[in-house]
């Protein structure tokens, strides 16, 4: 398991490669990369800054990875989330899940992202032509997390 919160970029290929390194028992790796968009809520976004709660962030991410491991039989999980100022097109978050079969990898990857969206203490502030604004949480994110019957 690998959980990182960092300012620098990450490389999906390198992370998946590290996961496979030296092992031949993995049958499936599902991955997700979230990117900074140049448009949100009808206005252009020149950049965004991600704030977090350092003492809690890694604890919250570890808790959601533990929950995924309790629900599915997983061989490895990597979660990397960036903080600081990001430009459109920059990668924000990476989740990669290894398991013997695809079903568990797909499900656990989606679960981790849905859980992260509502439980991990990160906040986005966007730079738009009208000035800076904090991104509001979406009801659809709560609905997505609720599908998994989170406590």
């Amino acid at each position, binding site marked *: 398991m690998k959980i990182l919160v960092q300012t620098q970029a990450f490389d999906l290929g390198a992370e998946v490669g590290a996961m496979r390194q030296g092992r031949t028992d993995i049958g499936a790796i599902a991955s997700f990369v*979230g990117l900074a968009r140049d448009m949100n809520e009808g206005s252009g976004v020149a950049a965004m800054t*991600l*704030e*977090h*709660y350092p*003492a*809690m962030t890694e*604890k*919250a991410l570890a808790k959601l990875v533990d929950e995924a491991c309790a629900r599915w039989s997983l061989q490895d999980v990597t979660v990397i*989330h960036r903080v600081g100022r990001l430009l459109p097109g920059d990668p*924000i*978050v990476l989740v990669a899940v290894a398991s013997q079969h695809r079903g568990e990898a797909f499900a656990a990857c989606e679960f981790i*992202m849905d859980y*992260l*969206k*509502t*439980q*991990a*203490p*990160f*906040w*986005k*502030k966007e730079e738009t032509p009208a000035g800076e604004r*904090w*991104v*509001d*949480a979406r009801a659809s994110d709560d609905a997505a997390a609720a599908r998994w019957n989170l406590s």
Partner: protein
Amino acid sequence: MTLRILYFARLRERFGVNEETLDFAGATAADLVAHLQARGGAWAEELAAGRAFRVAINQDIVALDAALPDHAEVAIFPPVTGG
């Protein structure tokens, strides 16, 4: 009891404070929220019933009826928007 209280993101900006230490006589997170709300202004607005905010005690998000242990680190923040 003594609490260390942290604020993040939009709430940190609206309250104009990152963190504070508070001597507090209440028992639950709801008691603390009511105490802060009574400061008026942005506190009353942002922590009003029906406003969306989260409370964490010792780095775990809790419901408002959660008990406050002495020397707890309490964080109050808007719903999260990472990912």
